[in-house]
């Protein structure tokens, strides 16, 4: 039986599989089919590419797009930017002005090539007259002779654009590019082509949605150009939907020295979503993803039944929750009141971890909720353990189709994955991360070990917010802050920690908070289900932990003062 939790990169998935597995997220899918410019932010594995590809014309045709989309005539053109074309460096041999012109030519031709690739599948909708019209218009725009015969205009356009791409590369490699050479530009090539297509009967007044994937891989000139195009507010012909991994460090300046503004020039959709409980936005999304995958595989049980919680663990948890309820009453909180509910929420699970025999084995990590929490809000992190669990369970029952993944199998996979993540941190970061030194890797390992110990101490002893597993950095004006920030940036690139933007407790505003990958916690027997709230850790203490292996001290009471009760973490 095929594993339903396949998690290969979206462009590598079988198209039908991608369509079958895609979950429409109504929080942002309306933007995908709108005429507005959009920036999609998300780390690797958060589903950016899948979203863009799903909304491309090729896939729309395959999934027989709904009538409403046909009426709206939004044509999605998927343009990947992670091709080796973006990694070429020959242009750097030329003066800055030539570099910019070549950058624009390559980006323009990338759009045209992919436009032709996508539109080819819709060519059958053109009348004979429109086919001839497009052949002439495309040849005019490309400044070539109208090709003989009556070939598909999109095939011809693609061939010409690819020939142009090749020609530029050969001229650069042969040092034959002259500053005065004519090059293709967005205004002179893409716009006339789009206008021509819109003039045909089949695509009259269509809107083109340019789906730019992995924009962070573009070179600096191309990023600025793309920002300039995002700045065109006249969106009747085209809009840009651009996915970026690492928006925090992305430069939004334009080719002309200006800058584009969120709200005015584009809307941002953030795929980096917090996960606090089964009802959170990501919790619901994760449930839908797994339910659909199970259903497509012919498994008709809900995710919670397919990944059941260990009965013994659930029983002990209930007991601990009962104890927290009794404690709440003893404190004078009325059952059903906000204070009562808040106390039980914060202390119910914590009581289980506190009452465990220190010599006992680590807790059993099982249940769909736990797996969701362990994903830290990243969809690939959710699918990956599910994939391995499915394989393990199938193997355990002799290759038959599993009806559930037993809790001990789940637990074993989770603990193995946790060990693997620690193994990466402790021994292999410099091998995996570009520009990470051995010393950086060691410092990151010390920092996260100390953080794990800190959160464990907190779980066992903190009076008011024991289950907090995220943190903010205080005293950022301290000289150690840049050192810590640099290490955390490396850790973020390795997906050891995720950085989210949340409401600051000091004077409103927004601030970054840090969410360590929750797959780190099983190694330390920590609860994967964090609670709302953030620990406030000083920059100098974090640096001391990273640099000198100094433990992060827990102020058992004061640590949470000023944190409020319910955060959006």
């Amino acid at each position, binding site marked *: 039986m095929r594993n339903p939790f396949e998690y290969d990169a979206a*462009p590598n998935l079988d198209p039908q599989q991608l369509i079958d597995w895609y979950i429409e997220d109504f929080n942002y899918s309306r933007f995908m089919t709108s005429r507005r410019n959009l920036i999609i932010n998300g780390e690797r594995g958060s589903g950016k590419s899948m979203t863009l590809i799903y909304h491309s014309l090729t896939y729309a045709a395959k999934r027989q797009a709904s009538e409403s989309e046909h009426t709206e005539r939004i044509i999605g053109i998927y*343009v990947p930017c992670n*091709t080796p*074309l973006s990694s*070429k*460096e020959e242009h*750097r041999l030329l003066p800055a002005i030539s570099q910019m012109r070549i950058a624009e030519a390559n980006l323009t031709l990338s759009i045209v090539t992919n436009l032709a690739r996508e539109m080819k599948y819709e060519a059958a909708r053109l009348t004979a007259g429109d086919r001839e019209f497009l052949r002439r218009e495309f040849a005019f725009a490309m400044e070539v002779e109208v090709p003989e015969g009556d070939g598909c205009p999109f095939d011809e356009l693609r061939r010409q654009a690819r020939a142009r791409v090749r020609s530029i590369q050969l001229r650069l490699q042969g040092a034959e590019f002259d500053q005065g050479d004519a090059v293709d530009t967005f205004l002179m090539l893409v716009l006339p082509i789009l206008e021509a297509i819109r003039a045909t009967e089949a695509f009259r007044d269509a809107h083109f949605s340019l789906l730019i994937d992995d924009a962070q891989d573009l070179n600096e000139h191309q990023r600025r150009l793309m920002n300039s195009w995002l700045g065109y507010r006249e969106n009747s012909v085209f809009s840009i939907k651009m996915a970026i991994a690492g928006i925090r460090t992305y430069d939004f300046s334009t080719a002309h020295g200006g800058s584009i503004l969120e709200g005015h020039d584009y809307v941002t959709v953030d795929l980096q979503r917090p996960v606090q409980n089964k009802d959170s936005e990501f919790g619901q999304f994760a449930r839908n993803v797994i339910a659909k995958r199970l259903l497509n595989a012919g498994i008709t049980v809900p995710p919670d039944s397919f990944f059941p919680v260990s009965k013994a663990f659930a029983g002990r948890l209930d007991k601990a929750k009962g104890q927290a309820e009794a404690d709440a009453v003893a404190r004078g909180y009325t059952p059903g009141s906000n204070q009562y509910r808040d106390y039980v929420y914060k202390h119910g699970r914590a009581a289980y971890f506190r009452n465990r025999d220190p010599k006992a084995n680590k807790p059993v990590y099982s249940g769909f909720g736990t797996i969701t929490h362990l994903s830290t809000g990243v969809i690939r992190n959710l699918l*990956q353990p599910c994939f391995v669990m499915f394989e393990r369970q199938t193997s355990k029952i002799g290759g038959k189709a599993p009806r559930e993944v037993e809790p001990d199998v789940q637990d074993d996979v989770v603990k193995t994955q946790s060990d693997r993540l620690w193994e990466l941190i402790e021994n292999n970061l410099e091998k995996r991360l*570009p520009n990470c030194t*051995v010393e950086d890797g060691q410092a990151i390992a010390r920092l996260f070990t100390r953080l794990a110990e800190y959160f464990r101490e907190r779980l066992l002893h903190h009076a008011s917010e024991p289950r907090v597993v995220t943190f903010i950095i205080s005293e950022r004006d301290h000289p150690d802050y840049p050192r810590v920030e640099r290490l955390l940036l490396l850790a973020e690139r390795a997906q050891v920690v995720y950085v989210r933007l949340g409401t600051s407790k000091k004077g409103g505003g927004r601030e970054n908070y840090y969410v360590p990958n929750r797959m780190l916690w099983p190694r330390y027997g920590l609860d994967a289900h964090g609670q709302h709230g953030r620990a406030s850790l000083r920059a100098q203490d974090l640096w001391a932990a990273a640099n000198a292996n100094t433990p992060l001290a827990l102020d058992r009471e004061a640590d949470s003062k000023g944190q409020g009760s319910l955060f959006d973490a």
Partner: protein
Amino acid sequence: MPEIVLITVASWEERFALGVRRSLSQENFTDVVCLASDRYADETSERRTAARFLASEAGVQYEEWQFDFEDQVECYHKMSALAQERLARADRVVLDVSTAPRTLVWMLLGALAPAGREIIIRYSQAAEYDDWQTTEEGEPRLIINRSGIMYPDKPTCLVALCGPEISRAEKMFDRFEPRKTLILRDRRAANYGEIKRLPNEYGGAVQEIPFDNTDTSDANLSRLEELVLPQIEGHNVVAASLGPKMSAILLFKLSQRYEQVGLSYVVSGQHNLASTSGIGQSTDLTLRLGKQ
């Protein structure tokens, strides 16, 4: 008197100076051109002095070209100048690649290629090797002027000629996100089968194929062609030499035949200054440059 030039790359390894000594003792060179990284000027200082002394003792002109090996643009200009100005009139050129970074080898060969000349590639093994040689690699990059012909509507195929470990290949995966990967590796390598430990998002599309990465013969090139050729039509092909040095020569030969194939490398951030000792066997290869 014929002009015979030895090109070598300064290193802290003993085999750099020992290689100069061996070459000078075997052939009547008129010139030694030593390429030296200014980032590692201190680490290579002692052995460069030794090489200079050896040249002087043999009555051979010695010159040093010092520049930043990690600056591709500077490397390109230096290698172009070396090929066009310094080597244009040379009757015979021997390039000792033993301690040379692949960037310089590929750029120099690329710069010499239009002249369609012959060049001797010399590789000397070390007498002994430590457990590790380099680590802390940077971002993978495509080589200026050997970057192939890439198209915006094709997926990527990575061809990685690997040594015992494949951590550098992982960095290649992260950078190029290939749809298909061929890991070519000697079956005798200690960690053969390591791809099983790759994260699944890489492992699914990776093939590990037994291959002799040290063999630069035309027969082995044909074997490489058989593997790569079927990928060219549907993929942008990026090829990387991540193991034995001579695999870089094999890839250069491949890129001469197929303009579509781009060559890539990963710069190391940290080098083991005691990675080798002594000098072992030397091998010469005559390479005919220009379109094959």
